[in-house]
């Protein structure tokens, strides 16, 4: 009897879908429930950021950088203003450096809370999402107290920050950090070590370390594969060397090194490390004037620079070419999610349809910075 021939079907997880984290189209070729190939199609959120940047002055570009990775706007600002400051050779006051680190690390915690919560929803656990957002509200309250905005801040300017910390920021931040440690323990009890969650994420989407490096992955995706690599320690910028903290990597505790569970756990543990950094920074922060070094006109000399920071999603790079005028000649943003998304076909082949969703959730992409 002839063998039963089965066809491959092409399933479209279209731009509108409850769990593709934004407008992303995945073209999945399936053989029954097994994935043969996945092709991501992007560009649905392309807002021509790079073309706009050429028509505006350097400070006017900062709100546009907020809107790329809209879940971690502080870090987008951070990367851009540090790049321009290096072009212009501006030295910012000490207080500004501490404020930038505090805001950046708080933003990292907020971003990872969203990543962990939405990952839970993709797997089917609805409740941790709301617990994460409850904690995220407190961070957003801190940000709103300082600069008036909850999501898109326009806070870090070339040479300083826009507003100084209000007087009750430090006590409120310390209180938040104390409560947050209990929240992480709650999250671990509810989700991380839950047997069903481990079944769904361990040994899924295994990414070997050398593939990750060759594909240019960075951030928790790279660290989840066991590579101990963090730009804050390996290519240092700002004042991260004054604090005591560790780089978290995936060790394959529940399955293989580099599976979804490792990437998820790297994010949870990074939140703890960020708490440590913020605590130390809040102790050490000096007084000073935060707007003293902001130049009247931002006019860098002709030249180009590529500067990168460790944003919560990975390596965020700004390639800025200046021709000596008030407007940038070219601003190219190397978005971490853009590079990380290329790995999705590689880690999904041979697994089941439900695993694509788990892989996509563990990569933690934001379409705003992929499409710019």
């Amino acid at each position, binding site marked *: 009897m002839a063998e039963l021939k089965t066809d491959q079907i092409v399933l479209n997880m279209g731009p509108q879908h*409850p769990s593709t984290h934004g407008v992303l189209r995945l073209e999945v070729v399936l053989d029954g429930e097994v994935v043969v190939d996945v092709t991501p199609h992007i560009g649905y959120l392309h807002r021509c950021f790079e073309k706009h940047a050429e028509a505006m002055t350097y400070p006017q570009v900062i709100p546009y950088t907020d809107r790329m990775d809209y879940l971690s706007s502080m870090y987008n600002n951070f990367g851009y203003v540090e790049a321009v400051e290096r072009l212009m050779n501006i030295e910012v006051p000490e207080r500004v450096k501490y404020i930038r680190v505090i805001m950046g690390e708080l933003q990292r915690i907020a971003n990872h809370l969203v990543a962990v919560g939405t990952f839970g929803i*993709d797997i089917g656990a609805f409740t941790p999402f*709301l617990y994460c957002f409850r904690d995220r509200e407190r961070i957003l309250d801190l940000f709103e107290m300082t600069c008036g905005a909850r999501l898109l801040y326009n806070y870090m300017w070339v040479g300083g920050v826009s507003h100084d910390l209000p007087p009750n920021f430090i006590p409120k931040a310390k209180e938040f950090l104390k409560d947050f440690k209990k929240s992480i323990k709650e999250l671990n009890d509810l989700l991380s070590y839950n047997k069903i969650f481990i079944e769904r994420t361990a040994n899924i989407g295994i990414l070997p370390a050398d593939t990750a490096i060759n594909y240019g992955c960075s951030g928790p995706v790279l660290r989840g594969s066991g590579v101990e690599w963090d730009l804050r320690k390996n290519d240092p910028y700002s004042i991260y060397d004054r604090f005591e903290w560790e780089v978290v990597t995936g060790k394959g505790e529940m399955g293989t090194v580099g599976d979804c569970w490792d990437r998820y756990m790297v994010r949870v543990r990074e939140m703890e490390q960020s708490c440590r950094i913020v605590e130390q920074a809040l102790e050490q922060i000096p007084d000073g004037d935060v707007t003293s070094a902001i130049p009247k006109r931002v006019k860098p000399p002709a030249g180009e620079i590529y500067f990168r920071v460790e944003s919560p999603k990975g390596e965020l790079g700004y390639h800025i070419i200046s021709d000596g005028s008030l407007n940038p000649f070219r601003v190219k943003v190397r978005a971490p999610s853009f590079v990380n998304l290329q790995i999705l076909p590689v880690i999904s082949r041979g697994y089941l349809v*439900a695993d694509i*969703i788990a892989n996509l959730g563990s990569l933690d992409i934001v379409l705003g910075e992929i499409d710019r």
Partner: protein
Amino acid sequence: MIPDKLAEFFGVNFLGYLIAAALPLFLWILPYALYAVYAERKISAFMQDRIGPNRVGPKGLFQTIADILKLIQKEDIVPSSADKPLFIAAPYVIFTGTFAAFAALPFSSIYIGSNINLGVFYILAISSFSVVGILMAGWAGNNKYSLYGAMRSVAQIVSYEVPALLAIVSAVMVIGTLNLNEISEMQTARFWNWWIFGGPLQGIQKFLLIIPMIIAFIIFFIASLAEVNRTPFDIPEAESELVAGFHTEYTGMKFAMFFLAEYGNMFVVSAISVSIFFGGWQSPFGYLGNSLGISWLVPFEQVFWFLFKGSFLVLIQMWLRWTLPRLRVDQLMTVCWKYLTPYAFVNLVLIGIITLI
């Protein structure tokens, strides 16, 4: 028994029994379905640190009524490429499969819709009728997602019937009858006569039975979660993967019927567990009516206990939904065939040995 009295009243047997079987539908299922949805929303809200519906009516009690009114007046869309007869019939098939089971549930000592000697067998058989409806719904939508959802759901329900039936059979071996009313009557006096605690037997047999009965209950509970497509087995409705699974293409009142059928199903499986393992309509510690001397109060108390125990198990099902993540399809099947079914077999043998003692 009320059905017989109704038959006498009408003079025609058929009419009396028809009304007796249909009474639970109006008196219990409709209010229960309305408030089960409300309870689920409130309970999930409290577990997630939110408030839940609190605007429509005092404390949001009329929320579901507002939702039903909204769903009734929505446009009933039938996709042009859908298979019309199947598309329209599917919700009714599922609804029928679920609600027909209510006819054999023992609500109290004097009321049971249909006092058939094959109560357990009938209920389990008619519940699997919904599988046909789900397959019809998935196929008729003419949508890849619906088809995937329907196929997964059918595989899941059909597979999990095996451990469920094995667990019930092991309990029935000791009990000796399939008539749900008699099963409930057997578990008289205090709660330690319930079958989960070994039943109204005397001597060493009773104590040996406790653990196997508890295991049988747990296996049946897990299998019934899969039967009603609740988390952690809600792959057929997995929102984050397949939009809405087999009911993607349905709108308006037909969608509402799927919903109500799901909650009805939850109560049916809870009611079976309660009748067999937890004493049915028996009170755990004597009747108020008896101690006060008001004899007509007793049947009402029994109805209260039955509904209370059934709702309690429904509450546990809701609790699990909002706590656990969902299992993937192949893991679901692994749990069924590699874990539940062997354990159920071993349990069956164990109980069989104990009955011979």
